Structure formats: C-alpha cells, structure tokens
C-alpha cells in the first residue's frame, strides 16, 4: 500500500507515443513528418481515373461506379470525397510540418528550410487537386494548433480558386524555390534526387499550372523556362518515348510521380488504377482474346477504360440483326484524334464473332503516331494479335503505357507519372500560343510530335485557334490516361460540350450536366460547416 502511494502521480505517462514537442529533434524525425505528407496521394486510384479520364472526350468506362456515369450529387460525391478527405488531411499535415520545422525544431537553418520547402510544394499540389476538382475551396496555410483553430477552419467559406492559385504561386516562388539549391543538390530532376523526393521541379510545374489556370501566360512561362533549363531538350535521345510507360519508375522525364510497389511477398503499397487500364480479362491469361499471361494472374475482372471514337476509332465490320455479315461502311477513321489506327480489314469472316477480322499493319507503324502503340491497346504487338473487340470493331482499350505487368488481383504497382516534362513542354506551347507567339508555340508542340514519330507542324497557315486545337489534341495523345484530360477540358471551358459530343457511353451522356465540371463538396462536410459551404451549382 505504501509502495502504491509512493508511486502515486496523477500525471499521464508520456512514454510510448510521439508528440509535436518530441518529434522535431533530429532531421530524420522531422523528415518523418514530411514523409507523411506524401501518403495522401493515395486518392489517385481507380475512381480518380474514372473522374479525370473516363468522363471526357477521349475515354469512357461502363463500370457501375457512380463517377463513370456522373451519377454524382452532393449526397453521392463519389471519388470526390476521397479527394477532399485526403487533400485536406495532407494539407493539415503539411501545415503542421512547415510550422513545426520552421519555428519549433532544433535543426540547422539549412535543414529546416529544405524540409519546409518540400512540404510547401506538396501542400500546393494538394490544393491544385482540390481546386481542379471542386473549384473554390476553403483555403488556409496555418497550422491546426488547437481546437480554436479547428473551429475557425470549419467556418471558412470557399475561396475563389484563382485566388488560391495566385497565393500559392507566390508562396512557392518566395518560400520554396530559393531553398532548392545546387549546393544541397535539390535543384535537380527527381530522378537524380535520393528517394525521388518532391521539390524544385514539382514547385515549378505547379506554379505554371496555377498561372495557366488564372491565365497569366508570362507568369506561367517563368517557371516553365526554369524547367526547360533543368530538363533540356525533349527528344527521343534524351527522353525516349518508351520511358513514358508507367511501369518504368522514376525516369529522367519525371517531375512528380506517385510511388507504388507491390509484390506478393514484398513491399505492398499499391493502387488499383492499373486494373482499369488493362484490356478486359477472360481468365487464364487471356485478355479479350489475346494470350498475355505476363500481365498477371488471378486478376479481378473489371470493366476497362475504353477509347471514344473521337480518340481512336476503328469500326471494322458490322452485322445488322438477322442480315448477312457485311463490311463496315461507317468506319470513322477521319474524325479521331489519333487518325487511322494501324489495322487492316482482312475480309475473313469470323462466325463466332459475327465480324470480319482485322490485322495489325506492321508497315504503318513506322509512319503513324508511335503513341498509338502506347496509348491505345490494340493487342500483342510482338505477335500481331489484336484484341477481339478490336476485331469486332469496338473501341480500343487503354494501351501498354498504363498497363501494369505481373498484376495480382487488382494491385497496381506502377508509379503514376502525374507530372512529366512533356506536359511542361506542351504547356509552354500553349502559353506561347495564347500570347500569340505562334512560332514558339509550334516549336514546343513539335518536340512531342517529333518524338512520337510525326512530322513537325509548320506555323504557316495556323492561326491561334488552329494551333490551340492542335495543342489540345496533342495533349490528348501525349498525356492520355494520366489524370489530366478532364482538368484540361475544364480549364479550356469546353469540358461539357466536348464530352457530351464525343462520349460513347450512353449512361454518361444521359446523366452529365454542366455543373459536373466540378465535383460537389460532400454534403456531410457542408452540413458540418453549418452550410457555410454549399453546392449551389448542383441545386439549379
């Protein structure tokens, strides 16, 4: 009893857990707080792919997930809730890291400044996705110190998206860029940085993206020029097209990629977008009529991402109900962004398919856009086998660029290259075009065209809108499937019209409305804000 009393203290025993007070003593500890800020990129998964790619002019997907057919509403926010929850949790973590590292840690000034700059770049990225997805959102850059801070944040209204973008542009310019230096080795491409940590390149990319959203082309070109200085010339020699495949990790062209790894018995940090970008699975190693066991085992059978006719059309043959099979007369080669696919009708009738077969045309690979091989799934190129749905004249799948090899179930271990240099190059083309500088616009556009094996365009005979159209189509070809398409279309103000015009998915066409260009803020969050936050566009 006496023993008990002598040990009596009503203080909590503080062993065994980390706190704000004890987690910034060493560089490794402080970095562990920053590490956490990366984790919330996990919202980039299947449904995010449906949100950003499948509801656009280039792709569709007939999955029952609400995002694919835009059956979304404030009460059914679909993938929007994952974007919202993850991004804000990440932003709070970034704010915490920035504040604590800067003002509460005992690290050296150079250690502090580099870690906080990294957190700022990540914070800007999360706001980038929030504003792209929801338009204006509550915006704050301070640490959630205590409960009073929380209460204040809960009452924040939407800040207009462009105000957020302008503030973050300045924040990155003043508080992040200066701390990535040649001396600390961080003024480099991520492929050259240990751990491929985010920093200089990501900050520049985000600044340019922000400036393009608010339409200040000079401000956009400033960081883009710095990127050009860092990355140099985009051509096949420096940046081979083959390396744009997501299964190749942290290649030189990378600006930021979400890291994944999955093996049955090793590191398991993965997503499932890859399952969407594979062709439909028949089982036992067969994918839509082509044997490709290298793609994986025990795969889940999901509805695949499919190309709209507008993106890549090949309608080989048709058979009217009850009539004799006949060759197609309405093949829509001409209207598609990718032009004619390297396939040839054979005239061989396939009774099981009820279609005429097609063959891959080897010769035409040389002359056509090489990206068809990567972006559009036609079959197994090495054996010249086409997918049976291409034989049937139905839409192409997503191509090997986005395929994940050796998948098990739905674990996609690809890195998601969400920002890469080709994107920046095309952004430069667009900025110059918008400034009326057609020559430079075409020059930058041609970098990606030439790498893909196309002839360079000439500025002659192009006006601004003609060049813009070329850039828009080029972005579709170059960046297809990489989570950009919807954001681009929304930024250009043409998302609803283009998607409505070109989608092949009846259910999406039926449901989509102009307000869907931005996702609704989840209704439960609006309620918690006391309806300071509303989704007015959705109530009309």
């Amino acid at each position, binding site marked *: *009893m006496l023993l*008990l*009393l002598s040990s*009596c*203290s*009503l203080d*909590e*025993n*503080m062993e*065994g*857990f980390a*706190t704000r007070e004890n987690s910034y003593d060493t560089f490794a500890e402080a970095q562990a707080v920053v*590490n*956490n800020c*990366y*984790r919330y990129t996990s919202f980039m998964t299947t449904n995010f792919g449906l949100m950003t790619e499948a509801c656009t002019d280039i792709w569709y997907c*007939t999955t*029952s997930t*609400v995002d694919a057919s*835009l*059956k979304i509403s*404030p009460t*059914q*926010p679909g993938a929007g*809730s994952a974007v919202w*929850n993850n991004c*804000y949790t990440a932003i*709070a973590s970034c704010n*915490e890291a920035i504040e604590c590292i800067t003002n509460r840690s005992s690290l050296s000034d150079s250690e502090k400044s580099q870690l906080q700059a990294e957190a700022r770049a990540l914070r800007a990225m999360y706001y980038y996705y929030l504003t792209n997805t929801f338009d204006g959102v509550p915006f704050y850059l301070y640490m*959630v110190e*205590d409960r009073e801070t*929380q*209460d204040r*944040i*809960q009452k924040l209204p939407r800040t207009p998206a462009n105000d957020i973008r302008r503030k973050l542009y300045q924040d990155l310019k003043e508080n992040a860029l200066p701390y990535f230096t040649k001396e600390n080795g961080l003024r480099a491409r991520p492929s050259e940085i240990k751990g491929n940590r985010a920093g200089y390149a990501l900050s520049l990319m985000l600044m340019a993206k922000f400036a393009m959203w608010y339409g200040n082309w000079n401000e956009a070109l400033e960081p883009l020029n710095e990127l050009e200085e860092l990355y140099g010339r985009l051509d096949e020699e420096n940046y081979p097209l083959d390396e744009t495949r997501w299964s190749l990790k942290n290649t030189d062209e990378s600006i930021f990629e979400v*890291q*994944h*790894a999955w093996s*049955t*018995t*090793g*590191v*398991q940090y993965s997503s499932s977008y890859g399952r969407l970008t594979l062709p439909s*699975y028949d089982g036992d190693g067969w994918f839509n009529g082509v044997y490709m066991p290298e793609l994986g085992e025990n795969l*889940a*059978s*999901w*509805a695949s991402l499919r190309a709209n006719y507008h993106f890549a059309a090949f309608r080989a043959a048709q058979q009217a109900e009850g009539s004799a099979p006949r060759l197609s007369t309405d093949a829509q080669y001409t209207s598609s962004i990718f032009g004619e696919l390297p396939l040839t009708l054979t005239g061989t009738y396939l009774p099981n398919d009820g279609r005429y077969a097609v063959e891959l045309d080897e010769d035409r690979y040389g002359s056509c856009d090489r990206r068809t091989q990567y972006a559009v799934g036609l079959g197994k190129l090495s054996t010249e086998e086409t997918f049976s749905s291409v034989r049937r004249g139905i839409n192409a799948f997503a191509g090997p660029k986005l395929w994940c090899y050796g998948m*098990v179930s*739905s674990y996609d271990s690809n890195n998601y290259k969400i920002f890469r240099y080709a994107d920046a190059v095309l952004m430069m083309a667009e900025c110059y075009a918008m400034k009326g500088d057609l020559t430079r616009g075409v020059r930058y556009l041609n970098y990606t065209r030439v790498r893909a094996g196309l002839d360079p365009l000439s500025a002659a005979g192009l006006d601004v809108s003609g060049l813009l159209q070329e850039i828009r189509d080029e972005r579709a070809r170059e960046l297809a499937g990489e989570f950009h398409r919807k954001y681009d279309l929304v930024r250009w103000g043409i998302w609803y019209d283009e998607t409505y015009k070109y989608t092949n998915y*009846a*259910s999406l066409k039926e*449901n989509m409305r102009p307000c869907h260009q931005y996702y609704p803020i989840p*209704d*439960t*969050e609006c*309620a*918690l*804000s006391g309806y300071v936050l509303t989704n007015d566009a959705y*109530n009309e």
Partner: protein
Amino acid sequence: MLPSLVWGQTARTVTGKVLDETGQILAGAGVMLPDGKNGTVTDIGGAYSIQLPAGAEVLSFSFLGYETQNVSVKGKDKVDVVLIPEKNNTLNEVVVIGYGTARKQDLTGSVGVVKMSDIEDVPTLSVDKALQGRIAGVDIVSSGAPGESSSINIRGARSITASNEPLIVVDGVMDAVQDISEIDLVDIESISVMKDASSTAIYGSRGANGVILITTKKGKSPKPSVIFKNEFGVSTIARTLDLMNTEEFVRYRNDFRELDSSSSESLPTYDAADYPNDTDWIASITRPALYEHSYFSVSGKAGKSSYYGALSFTDEQGIVKGSGVKRYSGRLNLSHEFTKWLSVNMNLSLFYSDRDVNKAQFGGTNISNGAMYLAPVIGLLDRSNPIYENGSLINTPYASIKYEEYFCRTPGQNYSMSIVFKPVKGLEIKSQNSLGRMVSDTFHWWPSYMPKKSSGEGADAYRFNRQNRRLGSENTVSYKTKLPSGHSIDALGGFSVYSTEYLQQSIRAAGMLDDDAKWNNFASIGSKENYSISSASSRILRMSAFARMGYSYKNRYYLNFSVRADGSSNFARNNKWGFFPSAAAKWSIKSESFLRRARWLNTLDLRASYGRTGNDDIPAYRSLQAYGTTSTYVFDGVQAPAFSLSRLENPDLTWETTDMANVALETSMFNRRLNITAEAYWSSTKDLLLNVTTMRTTGYSSRLSNLGRTANNGYELAISSINIDKPKFGWSTTFTISHNSQMVLDVGHNDYVPTVKSPGNINYMMYGYKAGYPLNSLWGFEYGGTVKSIEEYMENLDSRQYGYRENYTSANCLGHSRYVDQNHDGVLDQKDLVCLGNGDPLVSGGLQNDFWFGNFKFSFFIAYSAGGKMYNYSELYMAGSAYSNQYRYMLDSWHPVRNPQSDIPRAGDTMNAMLPSSLQVHDASYVRLKDVSVKYTFPLYKTSKTFKSLSLSLSGTNLLLWSPYNGFDPDVTSEVDSGTLRRVDMNAYPSARKVVLSVQLTL
C-alpha cells in the same frame, strides 16, 4: 450457554442438531418450549440440548429466514431437525452494498438483488447472459458468440463516446474481472446491482453507469459440503433467414438483367440449369453444438477458519462451426479468525479461457463474402463471387472456417487479502489489498492455400499479446452503533488506490514461406517489408477518498450521506480531481402508529435519493496532443516511417458528470406474499465525453471533447408474489417491467453526432445523436415507394416531393425507389434525413414463474421488449442491390409486367443500395421463452449419512421467440464494445437455442 428450567422430577433432556435444507448446520437456531418463554439456541455446531418439563411433547425450532417448525419429541431423546427457508421473507436478507453490507430493510438506495435460485439452473457460461429481463432497469445484450462479452446498461445509456458499462466489483475489488464470464455462475453467492446515485456515488467517477457487486461463496458449516455438478447439452441455431434459393435467385438476376439497360450488355442471361449449386450459406456454416460444464467444490468451516474451494470446466461450442470457448477456473476463498479482534480473508482465483474465435462472416459490411450476402449459386469453396462483378478473390465463410486457425487464450489471476481489526464493538478497520494479472494471447493463421491467396503469396500469421497488471488497495474504517434511545449510526470512511498498467504488442507477417510452422516461426517470412508490428503501453492511476454516514431512528426514519473524491491520471492537467456527493432518505410508513392496525400490510417504505457520479471510462492519454506512427509512402523502393496527425491537445478534458434522483415505494403485504417495488428516476448527464465529428478540412476527422448533455428518466416496477403456498405445492411469480427514456439535450456545436454510418462512399447517419431526439434514434430517409409511372416522375420534377439516390431520367426511372424530399429542394441530401424511430423499447422486462410439487421444481422465464425499432443492416446491401443474395420478399419486387404496383424496389434497383431508409427499419419487439427448467431433487439426507441430495434437471434457453424482426434475433448487438448502441445487427452472431441436462450431487 444452556439456560434451562427444571420442572420437577419428570423433566428429561432432549438433544439433537438443527440443519438447513441443504444439510448445513444452523448455529444460533432457536429451540423453544411450547410456552414460548423458555428455550435455548443451537451452538456453533448446530447442536442443542434442552430440558423438557413433564408432559411437553412438542418443540418449536426457528431460525431467521426459515419457517418455524413444531416437532413432536414424544418418547425421543435425540431429535434432528431440518429447517426450510421461509419463502416469503426477504427482509432480513443481507445485501451487499458498496464497501459493506446492509439488511434489506435498512437500504435507502436502489439495489436490485438477483435471486440466485432463479438462475442457478440456467445453463450458461456467463452469468450476464442469464440476467436479461430479471432486474428491472438492467438491459443486457450480447453478440451471441460464446465467450464474447455482453454489453450491460443499467437504466439506459447516458454517454455517447465513453463507456456505458457498469463498474463490476468482485469481492470488493474493482476491475477484478475484464468480463463477468470469467466467473462460474455456481461460484457466485450473490449479485447486487446498484442502480441509483446514492448507492453508486461511493464509487465516484466510476459509478455513473451503475455498479454490479458480485460476492463469491464462502464456507459455512462445520461439516464439509461437497458439490459435484455436471451439465451436458446441445444448442442449435434458433432462427434462420428467409433468403432466396438458386431458382429464385436466378429469376431475380434475370429481372435485373432485363431492367438494367446500362449493364444488360455485359450480363449473361441466367439459367438455373447452369448452376449446380444451391448453397444455403447459413446452414453450411452452422451446426448443432455441444455444451458441457463440470463443477466441483468443497466448502466448510473448521474451528475459526472457513474455506471454499472450487474447480470448474466449461466447454461451450458455438453454433457456428469452429467457434466456441473452453473455460477452466479455480477459486479458493479462505478466512481465519485469529482472535476476536483480528481476522484475515484471502480470495484467490485463477481462470483460463481458450476461445475459438468465430471466423465466419455473416453480414455487416462484408458484402463480397458474408454468408447472408453470398448467392446460392456459389459453391462452398469457390474463389470468387461472380455477382460482385469485380471478380476479386474471396474466402467464403465456409473456407475461412475450414482453413483458418484463430483462437485467443486468456489466463488470469486475482489475489486479494484483507485484514480486519475489530478493536472495540462496532468498530471495524479493514484493509484489502489485491493484485491481478491478465494476459490475452491471440493467434491467427491464414494458410497459403486459402482460396483468396495467389500462388507464391505464402501464409499469413498474426500474434497479439496484451497484458494488464492491477494493484489495488481499499482501506476502510467503519463504526456501527445502536443507542438504546433508538438512534443508530453506521459510519464509514476510507481511501483507495488503484494502479493499472497495460502492455500490448502485436506482430503480423504476410507471406510466410512455411505453412507448417504457423505463428511459431516469424523468421520464415519472405520479405521483412511484410511485417507489421506494433507495441503500446499505458498506465492509469486512480486515487480516492470516500465516506458514508448512515443514520436511522427506530427503523422508521433513515438518512444516508456519502461522498467520494476521485483523482484520475486519465484526465487532463486542469481537471485531475472530482467530487461526488449523494444523499438519501427513507421513511418506513408502516412503522408509524396510524398503520399499526393494517395487519394485511407488512411494510410500506418510501425512499428518495439524489447523487452525483462520474464516468472516466475512455482510453488513456486522450487529453494529450499526439502523432501517430505509421509505415508509409515508398521512397527508393522501401516504406519509410512517418508521423501522422493523431489528435490535438485538450487540457480541460474531464469526466462526465451524472446527477440522478430516485424515488421509490416499496411494499409487502398479505403476510409478505405480495411484494411490490415501484421506482422512478431522473438523471441528467453533462460534459459528455464526446467524439465530435470535425470537418475534414481541419485535418482530423473527430476529436474528443466534454460537450453536450443527455437526460434519462424511467420507471421500474417489480412485483413478486407467492400465489400458492401449500406444503406440497407452491407457485410464485416475479414480474418486472421498466421503461427508460433517454434524450439527447445538447451535442455541443454539432448538429448531430453519428455513431453508425451507412456504408458506401457517402456515409449517412443511421444511429446518432441530435439534440431533442432520443439517444438511440434511428436516422435515415423516408422511403417513398417505387416510381410507378412516367407521369408520376414528370410531375415530381415540379412538386419535388420525392428525391432519388441517383439521377434518373424518364427513360429509366420506373420501379426505382424514391425517398421523401423533406424540404422539397429537389436534392436528396443530409437535410432530408429524418428520425425513423427509437431504438429503445417502450417497455421491457421479464416474467419468472416457479412451481414446486414436492421435490419437483418447474420454472420458466419469459423476457419481453416492446416498442423499439431496429435497422436490419444487411438489407442495406440486399434489398434490390445488384451484388448479393436477396431476402425472399424481393420476389414481390416491382416488375413492369408481373408486379407493376409493387412498392418493393425493382431487381437491381441500384448497384450500390446502401441508402438507409425506413425500408430497412423494423419493429424490434419480442417475447421470448428464455429459460425453462424442470428439476427433481432426491432428498438423500433422509436415508444416507454421506449424501445430502441429488438433483436432476432439464433446462432449455431461448426456446421460443416471437418477433416481427426479420434478422436472426432482435436482441443481439454486434457493437458490444459500444455500450451506447443497443441492438445493432451488423454481422452479429446468430443466437442459439440450448437444451441441457444437469446432475448435481451434494455431499
């Protein structure tokens, strides 16, 4: 001590013994001459010796609480007498209360006493499962799985985030058990349930949810008493679900295919002939399960020492294959009186439970592999669920049972020793010190050949170890005195200290190369990346000082005050100490002169009490800011450690405070054959420990605060009567009925606090708190039937009477479910949620009936509950969903040709049903024939010197259930850890019906 009177020459002496009905000796029993003036009492060995005057042929034997017997002693010198307990009189019963005992007639607070004789024949591993409905105001629900704890609410729930479970005190030691099921029912001498604040305030910050005091048996008679008890029985699933078979399911799928335009392209037309399977998933994983219980005890008194030793073994198989629990327990209670003023008691208990944890999923959120959800077309060991479209691999519940190993071993020890000094009459100084240790070891193994695993993936293994150590010290001084003037005083003061330490660690390995070593060789992992390891520890210290003062005058007026000051390390720096007072008064009206003539009335008592108690039952360190530690994002191919935001500091975090007032009227009449206790109470709880949902923009999803208020009030009525009381035949009845209504008055600045949310990517509150609504309100949308015509749909575009869960168009709206758009804003959202009912019953209780025919005893107990509502959670996934099997009523769903007027949503109404609505809310009322037993006792003491009695009994539990609820059982909960939530049927284990044969031999 043998006073006697000599009546002349013819006087003679009669000697003998007085025993009780079980053959134990009765010391101090009165032996009287018929004149009633002269007599003696039995000595400590139960023996008496009395001199009879000439002509006296009858002696009267009496003992407190026993029927007085007049026995003829004509021509006998030696007469042994067995006294039978007085059936009616419970007044002199000694009731265990906090830090002491009291005669029942002196109680000023609300204490429910469990009649042990009512439950002694209930075959159950855990005594709590036998108690439901037996004490007014006590609600017990459990998950149904053997060995899993129950959730007990006394007078409802008042906390939202903190626990609502009562404090359990065993032989004076707090927290001596983690769960009541650690104690064998046969070891229990008495159970007292303290319900009002005046009884519980002595437990201060722990008392707000009521207190259950359990006292274990002690040795009583000089002659050793030996008991052997053996029970053997069988249990089966009590009720199954009305689900579709293959033929019906195929029809449903074809309807779905026909009606759903967007998916018809990809869906095949089903033909029943293609499906050889017709799997009844529930039947495939359940079984008749065996029950066995053996118990052996020796007890007695030797001189100044008493002893009680018992060993017991229980093996209760679960009705779900592969589940069950084996419990071994031992107990030794010793006491010795060294001198008149010094005695020592020691209680030692050991137990070991070996629980096979249930591996099967029934429902809940396990949509792809829950037994309720799996389609009948799927085979027992199939690797995928074709209905669940994405083709992910699954382990069917059948496969999980067949391949997995999963059990939990829990050894525990409790030692306590108390020293009692009685230096002068009435003064008692007691120091009780205890230590306890409990270890819980969990083993879980998934072999590499589980269907869900791919080749090369290897086996998974998991080990979890948790231990806690508890040191406790309770020290009291009490003084009792009764003055000749009629004033009595009973005072108590003391202090206590409890220190508890928790340690835990777990390791999980994925991808073990070796299938044979199971969890015994964690080094055989393929890659060290695939360990997940955790460890944690916490310490809680509680210090208290308390006092109680009781006063009474001539057994007519009673006053009682108690106070406790509690300090807990669990609370934040600004609020370490709390103060909990109470007061109670009682007036024995019958003792007043104006009622003296009312001979039919035996007692009439009015009592009232008021007190304050607290609740500090939240995990340790909640007031401190913390980061979580997690292994996370990949850098250079490996996952680097990271600190994540876990919670913010709250320096003011403190306990909840409950104020409770109680009034009661107690009466006993007609020679104590009718006893009625009526009580009413009002309680209000403030500073709720509330896990408040915060906006995700703040970086946290919730935070623990002291916010909000709730209020409870209720009525309880308990009536016990002896209807027939003949020497050879008797019938008694006990009836309880209680009503408890609990309201949320304030949930801080929240509009609402959800406790159960719907699944899917937007989570609506299904159960939750909103100011002005009952605590256990069910929330959801108001179902508006189906869309039956396009005109209706078009009209609604203007009237906005209904909303839909998805955007429909006039082309595809028919047969889809619709919900009332309460605010007619054209959008179905949070603002359209309405309260769909109260989860708490209007009234609940039980009815016990006992009959005696000579040595036969027949009893049955009916438990009932009326007026509560309940979600059938599984219907969220099943009613019209595209992914699961269906309840059979879906055959009557809307169909354009067959059933155009049906209000049941069409097949495949939505891919992701999951919108909680009145469609899934059911009446949870029930009447249950809970316990029945027939018992015959052979009075062996009449013929044998060795054996006292042999009894045989046949008993059954949960034999019949009447309920409109369409799930397994309306009285289960899957949320046993959340004391607030009652009756949430999410993946709950189905309840069993059990029949048991029991043999008890007493020596």
